[in-house]
């Protein structure tokens, strides 16, 4: 009878925890920036799965923990010890095997997601295009639209090549086909884009949160990265690898446009003669009263130390007119 009640309570708790986990898994999508690339959908699905399982485990552990805190306290004058239970082999085997199976499963699912994104990344020499998409009968754990998006993008148009150069502290984007440069990243929607990342000085991080992928930019090394923007709008590109004094200001906007707008932008940009772009780091550095000898900025309450001077503002065909501002 007592046992039956315990089983009943445990089952009810398990159901409640499962419901809460489902709810959290759904909720998790709202914690991210918009899903602006096909890859971001894959990441968000994976994250949702982790959130669900993570919540389940967290509540599964914390529930009994709190129950114990409430009900297994010593009464005030009870100086006796609790029963000397030292272990239970079966329990111990179960709670070793379960996490083992779980993390191996999570690794496998993560591996599948990574494959599907096929973002290339460093040192991937074999360019088989999205091979694992040719597995039609395979029951996919998630909905397969992102893959279809990627596949469609790859099939319909050639991959759009863009060279990215990072330096202290500016981003320059070069479009080799039209030979134009810009400090704002413009991308066509629904096309596969291949970035070739280069650094002129230190490590930087190429990170567009709306695309869910970051990749270090390493001096002396060309790193390829492929992505598929699927949503028009303005997003933010941030340096994600600490790169020195003006690291936090090394950001710019990413504009994903319809193919028409994109072509127009390319045409307009190539018509412009290159000019010096606005650069936050160079601007702040020039504001300093005693350049080079300490301060980078006059407004602050606590003054600073000498810094590596920023590279001169990049000379590009296209630069946003004013100080880049952040999208919501």
């Amino acid at each position: 009878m007592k046992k039956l009640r315990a089983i009943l309570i445990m089952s009810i708790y398990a159901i409640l925890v499962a419901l809460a986990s489902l709810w959290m898994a759904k909720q998790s999508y709202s914690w991210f920036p918009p899903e602006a690339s096909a890859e971001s959908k894959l990441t968000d699905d994976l994250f949702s799965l982790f959130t669900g399982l993570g919540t389940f485990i967290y509540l599964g552990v914390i529930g009994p923990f709190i129950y114990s805190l409430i009900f297994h306290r010593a009464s005030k004058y009870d100086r006796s010890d609790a029963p000397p239970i030292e272990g239970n082999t079966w329990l111990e085997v179960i709670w070793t095997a379960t996490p083992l199976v779980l993390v191996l499963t999570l690794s496998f699912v993560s591996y599948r997601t990574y494959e599907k994104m096929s973002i290339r990344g460093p040192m991937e020499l074999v360019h088989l295009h999205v091979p694992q998409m040719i597995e039609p009968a395979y029951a996919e754990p998630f909905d397969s639209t992102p893959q279809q998006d990627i596949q469609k993008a790859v099939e319909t148009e050639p991959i759009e090549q863009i060279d990215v150069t990072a330096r202290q502290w500016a981003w320059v984007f070069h479009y080799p086909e039209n030979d134009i440069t810009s400090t704002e990243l413009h991308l066509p929607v629904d096309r596969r884009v291949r970035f070739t990342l280069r650094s002129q000085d230190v490590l930087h991080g190429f990170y567009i949160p709306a695309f869910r992928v970051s990749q270090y930019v390493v001096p002396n090394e060309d790193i390829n990265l492929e992505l598929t923007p699927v949503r028009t709008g303005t997003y933010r590109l941030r340096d994600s690898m600490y790169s020195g004094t003006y690291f936090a200001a090394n950001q710019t906007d990413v504009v994903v446009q319809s193919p028409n707008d994109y072509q127009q932008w390319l045409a307009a940009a190539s018509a412009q003669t290159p000019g010096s772009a606005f650069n936050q780091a160079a601007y702040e550095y020039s504001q300093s009263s005693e350049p080079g000898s300490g301060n980078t900025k006059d407004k602050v309450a606590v003054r600073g130390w000498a810094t590596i001077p920023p590279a001169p503002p990049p000379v590009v065909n296209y630069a946003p007119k004013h100080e880049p501002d952040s999208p919501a």
Partner: protein
Amino acid sequence: MTNISLEPIEIVRGQPYPGAPDNWKRFFTFSTDHKVIGIQYIVTSFIFFLVGGLFAMIMRGELITPEADLVDRTVYNALFTMHGSVMLFFWTFPVLVGLGNYLVPLMIGARDMAFPRLNAVSFWMIPIAGILMMSSFLIPGGPSQSGWWAYPPVSLQNPTNNLINGQVLWILSVAISGVSSIMGAVNFVTTIFKMRAPGMTWFRTPAFVWSVLAAQLIQLYGLPSLTGGAIMLLLDLTAGTSFFTPERGGNPIVYQHFFWFYSHPAVYVMVLPVFGIFSEVLPVHARKPLFGYRVIAVSSVIITVISSAVWVHHMFASATPPWMRMFFMVTTMLVAVPSGIKVFGWVATIWGGKMRFTTPMLFALGGISNWVFAGITGIFLGSVPIDLHVHNTYFVVGHFHYVLYGAIVMGIYAGIYHWFPKMTGRMYYEGLGKLHFVLTYVGTALIFLPMHPLGLMGMPRRVASYDPEFAFWNVVASIGGFLLGLSTLPFILNMVSAWVRGEKVGNNPWRAYGLEWLTSSPPSVENYEELPLVISGPYGYGRSEPLVSNVPNPDLTEFPESLTPQKAS
């Protein structure tokens, strides 16, 4: 609540008792007593904890507003570099070495560490290295501004062109603290292997000792890699070599491997002893043996082994080829298994126990709950696709502060409160302790939880300024940060006043089972009148079985009482 019913026992003092307050001058000497050295470590590192905390307060002040307006960007960058370095090298590592120093010989029934003089030398290197690092605030160019990773090429850029610059001092300071850690590790490993009391077999050795052993083994194999990398970095910086200098053909990524080969396992150097503290504190205050003691003990060593092969998870977004990403993803996730075993064991320990919520128990329980959360976000980070989004964002900062503050600092507090009566012979003030706990727990949640959504939204770490969309959670985090700053005040007040005027308690106020509780409080110089002869395993709560066959100190009459508790009340 605490059952301090025992009237203070008058002890005839044949030998000096190092923890006693009238003896404070000993702490400024080159003492070779492991108990003096332990307290020296704890107090010194706590001062550095306050220094590092002060840096954090200024950083949180800067981050209340999106613009970089409180301090100059170079100052902010120097502050986070110094915050991270001080907190790791001069607070977390040394304070745990201090606790280990104090407790390990007592727990294994030894008279001291294996190499007492080496022990003293190891300690005195810590303040020297710490002061060296802090002195970089006074030189032209200021302290290192390359983060606690000191990744080249940024760490090799030397704006002042001086030979003595912040980065050089940083490397020297870290190297000295590394030498100190290696000497400490040799000492611990030798002590634990060779000096356990007669009868103390491996499976009669307390879980804390196991965890210290596991942690110190990591120091031995890991730290040399960091030292080697740091020396090459120093050569690049000063002697014109180019191991990591890209302009001259070097490869900065190689440094990352050297750095993380140590610095990932290093996180286990910090967390393992805290796991040990949890394993010691819970049974005492729940009056129940540690559930699955053998598995918990062995899982520490398994962690030592696995953690040597996971370091690339800090470099998923670096120039890391896909096969490496996948391989290290699997190994990283495997660490969760031994960590999980411990958590389940702790929950099963308190289950059905007779708990008392003393301050050390509260901190231990709070620490465990935070660790469960941090372990789960750790699994998230181990997954390559997720990490590629959150790497170097505030999500990571939230994760490791949940470990480092939520679990480790809380566990350290638990340990300090728990063994405070042993170290001083006096009891801390329970009310102040509980206040301290509440402030710490709430502060931790307020500052570090919001960092997770911030990271998911895409806020990079190490930024002095940020886009306005991140403002809300940053204000919340700053408030939590100031609360944490505040939380140290009741602790300091508690420790100082209790040490001087706290209620005197007997040798075993918790009625705990363990060799350290068999001797006087504070223990005399050589710890035991007569070395204990161990005849049973640790955590014998609820069994009427003595721990040692010879009661080494005739004063300890309350110990047998705890073994026959039915008659006690």
